[in-house]
C-alpha cells in the first residue's frame, strides 16, 4: 500500500435553543454540544461556557486581557461586544436553566442568531492509497495477424491484397 500523512479540518456550529425548552432545569445544557473524541473513543460534551471562553474575547464575563476587542465588527448583527452580550446570557441559561423570562432576555434582540463555531483544523491520519489499473484487453489490445504474411500487388484491379505464403 502507498501510505501518506493526510490532514483534514472540520467545524461544528453551536447554537442556543431556537424554541423555549421549558421552565427550570429543562433549559440546562441546551446550548452544549457533543463531539466525538478520537483519542478517547467517546463523545465529549463541550459546554457553551467553555467554547465562549475559548473564543478569547476581551469583553464579557470571561474577558481575556489579550483577547479580541469588543469593537471589532462582525458580519451579521453587530460587533464583538453585541455578540458577547447575548452569548453571556446563553452561557448562564445553559448552565442553570431558568424561567421563560430568562430565555426571552437571551433570545430577544437577535439573541437567537448567536453562534459559536468549533473548528478542528488539523486532523491528521496516516492513510492508505491504492492505484488501480485495467488489465488484459481492457488496456487496449494490440492484435497481430499471421506472422508469415506477404504483400503482392496485382495491377489489373488496382488493389493491394495480402495473401498467405
Amino acid at each position, binding site marked *: 500500500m*502507498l501510505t*501518506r500523512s493526510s490532514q483534514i479540518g472540520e467545524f461544528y456550529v453551536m447554537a442556543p435553543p431556537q424554541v423555549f425548552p421549558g421552565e427550570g432545569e429543562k433549559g440546562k445544557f441546551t446550548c452544549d454540544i457533543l*463531539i466525538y473524541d478520537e483519542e478517547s473513543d467517546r463523545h465529549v460534551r463541550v459546554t457553551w461556557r467553555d467554547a465562549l471562553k475559548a473564543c478569547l474575547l476581551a469583553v464579557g464575563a470571561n474577558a*481575556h486581557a489579550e483577547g479580541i476587542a469588543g469593537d471589532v465588527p462582525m458580519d451579521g448583527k453587530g460587533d464583538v461586544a453585541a455578540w458577547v452580550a447575548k452569548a453571556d446570557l446563553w452561557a448562564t441559561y445553559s448552565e442553570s436553566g431558568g424561567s421563560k423570562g430568562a430565555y426571552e432576555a437571551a433570545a430577544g434582540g437577535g439573541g437567537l442568531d448567536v*453562534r459559536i463555531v468549533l*473548528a478542528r483544523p*488539523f486532523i491528521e491520519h496516516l492513510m492508505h*492509497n491504492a492505484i488501480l489499473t485495467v488489465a488484459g484487453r481492457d488496456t487496449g489490445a494490440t492484435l497481430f495477424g499471421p506472422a508469415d504474411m506477404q504483400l503482392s500487388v496485382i495491377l489489373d484491379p488496382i488493389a493491394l491484397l495480402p495473401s498467405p505464403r
Partner: protein
Amino acid sequence: MQANTQVKTIEGHYTGHFKAVVTKPQNVMVMRDVACAGYVAGCNTRFFADSGGKVMTVAAAREAIQDRLSFADDMTDRYQSMLAFPCWEDQFENSQLDTVMSVTGRLLPWEVTGAQQHASFPGGEAMYQAYKVKLNLDQVHYGEDMKAAENQDFISQARYL
C-alpha cells in the same frame, strides 16, 4: 567488476532503477485515502487556548498551535485540537460560511476573485484579521513542502503495511 581470464572477459554488474511512464491515463486510477492506517493527531476535544484547568489564554493558544504543527512534544505526543470563534447566523444564511472555511492566510478558491477577503471565516474579514494577529495563524503553512503538497506525494512509497 570481475575478470574471467580464461576467456579473456571482464564482467560488470549494474543495477538500474526504473520508473513506469503512464501513457494512457485512462487505464489508471489513483484511489486516495481509501483506508486509515493510523491516527496521528488533531481529533480530540481540547482547546488550543486551554492552558490547564480550562483557563484559556491567547498565549497558550498561539503556543499550542505551533507545538501541534511542529510536533514539538515527542515525549507525550499529546496536542490540543480545537479553536472556537464567534459568529452570527446571518453568515450561514448568506452562504458565506456553509460547508468550508479557511483559518489560514490562504483564501478559498471562490474568495480569490473580487475583494479577496475571508468571507468564510466566522465573523468575516475583520475577525480574521484580529484572530490572525492573536493566534499567529500565518504560521500554519510555515515549513510546508509546497512541491510535495502540489504533487500530493506519498510519505512512504511501495510499503506493505
